[in-house]
């Protein structure tokens, strides 16, 4: 039996060694993970969201474990564009040189802020593209407020795409909207090269002893296995109703911990997948997932992994 199945994928014109990414906000800027995994084995990597100016983030408690998941309300805490370019680009350049597609997640309070971050980094060779974070549930301005109105999504995508120049622009979608396909079509019409979905769901945990929310921010984004079946459904919906026709790839995410989870997303229509909360328990799970996908392809006698994408019967 041939054990060397080709699990490389083409994603928005990029050739990736495998379809597994690390999701923004769960893998820092890569340097933190170097002791725990082989960074060179990643298909893709998405940085923690960067804003123009550093952001302090929300007060503690910022996280809480829930049934089959967790809530986080970090509040886009990050070191800001200046320090990012000085301190973090070197390790990202190394990753990029070894073949990993590096995406920078951009966030802002105004459309101009998104554009300024992207423009500043658009000439950087190590960066394959940008993920437009218009779906963060934990900040009052910007974030999710940009991601829920089709007209706004189209406008911000258009502006960001101009700033990105030759680089790939991926738009990250919020899950809790009336019609996610309408948002996806707006992003595509605005010039998005790829879509990533889903971001976390706004949720709440209450401490019944104190009758207070468990998080200082009161609400947080729900992630982990609890959201996986919803994410699979939404990926399939966006694939069928928007992405497939436009030939725009989907980066699927939401509760992926195993190769089986990843394969489910690919069958639903994702060209590649990202691991988020799963990294916290197993910092090397992306490698294991890539290996597991390979084994599945051998067992199913698939020649190319792309045969899986959207193969839902």
């Amino acid at each position, binding site marked *: 039996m041939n054990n060397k199945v080709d699990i490389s994928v083409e994603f928005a014109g990029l050739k990736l060694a495998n379809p597994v990414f690390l999701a923004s*906000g*769960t*893998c*820092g800027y890569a340097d*933190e*993970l170097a*002791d*725990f995994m082989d960074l060179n084995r990643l298909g893709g990597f998405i940085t*923690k969201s960067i804003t123009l100016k550093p952001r*302090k*983030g*929300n*007060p*503690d*408690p*910022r*996280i*809480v*474990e*829930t*049934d*089959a*998941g*967790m809530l*986080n309300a*970090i509040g886009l*805490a990050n070191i800001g564009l200046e320090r990012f370019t000085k301190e973090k680009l070197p390790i990202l350049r190394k990753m990029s040189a070894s073949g990993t597609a590096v995406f920078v997640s951009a966030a802002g309070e105004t459309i101009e802020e998104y554009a300024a971050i992207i423009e500043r980094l658009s000439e950087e060779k190590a960066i394959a593209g940008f993920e437009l974070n218009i779906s963060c549930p934990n900040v009052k301005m910007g974030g999710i407020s940009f991601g829920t109105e089709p007209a706004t999504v189209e406008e911000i995508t258009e502006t960001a795409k101009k700033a990105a120049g030759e680089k790939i622009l991926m738009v990250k979608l919020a899950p809790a909207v009336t019609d996610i396909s309408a948002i996806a079509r707006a992003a595509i019409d605005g010039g998005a090269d790829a879509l990533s979905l889903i971001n976390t769901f706004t949720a709440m945990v209450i401490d019944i002893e104190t009758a207070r929310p468990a998080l200082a921010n009161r609400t947080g984004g729900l992630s*982990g*296995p609890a959201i996986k079946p919803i994410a699979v459904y939404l990926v399939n919906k966006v694939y069928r109703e928007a992405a497939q026709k436009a030939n725009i790839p989907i980066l699927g995410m939401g509760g992926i911990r195993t190769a089986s989870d990843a394969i489910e997303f690919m069958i639903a229509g994702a060209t590649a997948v990202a691991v988020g*909360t799963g*990294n*916290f*328990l*197993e*910092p*090397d799970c992306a490698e294991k997932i890539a290996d597991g996908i390979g084994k599945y392809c051998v067992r199913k006698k698939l020649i190319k992994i792309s045969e899986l994408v959207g193969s839902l019967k």
Partner: protein
Amino acid sequence: MKKANKGQFWGRVCGNKSATGKGQCFYKITLEFEGQAAKAFAKAVPGQFAEIDLSKTSLPAAEKIPEGLKDACKRDIILRRPFSFCDITTKGNKTIVEILYCVVGPASLRMTTLKAGDTVNIIGPLGNGFSIPKDKKTALLVSGGMGSPPLQHLADYLVKNNPKINVLTFAGARTKEHFPFNPKRFTKQKIETIITTDDGSAGLKGFVSEHLERWIEKSGQKESEMIIYACGPEAMLARVAEIANSSNIECQISMERRMACGIGVCQGCAVECRLEGSSETVYKMCCTDGPVFDAKEVVF
């Protein structure tokens, strides 16, 4: 102290039993490491910690689950749990790590079912431990309740590695039932320990911070020659920091936060800290900037 190498390792359980001989709440688990893991943990310093995967560890039998944890035990464990060390020793090419823990929720309850021969997945050693300035003559170790393990480790470490420093420990708890160790024996080494309880059921009556303050006043020692190390509930740490800062005694405190990753990627364990020379504050990460902080920088 230099930061040790870290990684994701497997440890073998050598023992796991009640730490005080009475009650079900406090346990001590002994883990044995070989190879790279043994090397990494041998270099760990007091105040560092490790993240343990308890997601696949079974719950005890239904009748052994405390009433107050029955509901919480219905949910799965999604995240690792952070634990400090109460002792680390080397035996040949093996490293033995002791962790003192308290059953507080569904993960620590699962931990009690681990038995000799089981393996556990552990990420560590993580964070920055206590540091030991050369010019100090007296180290005052102040622990409150479940804050004692890293200080027990530090006490032994100081006696072994810095014999010139005089070590005095203050161990406080709410009542005599709330010490995670036998109050007669704070550490393996012979060290003077002042026991305090809020209700006077063991040792001196009152908060551990009050007794620390009185001792400092009476000691007549130079402030610059003393150092305070503290770990315990946040209200106690706030008071100890206040005492240290007002009398200009160097003080290192070990903080506790909920953590998802322990390695600085989730940004979940925020500790509000002052910026030197500014009225602004920043959030530092308990896992990678701490868990040991200078008492002057933390905002309580």
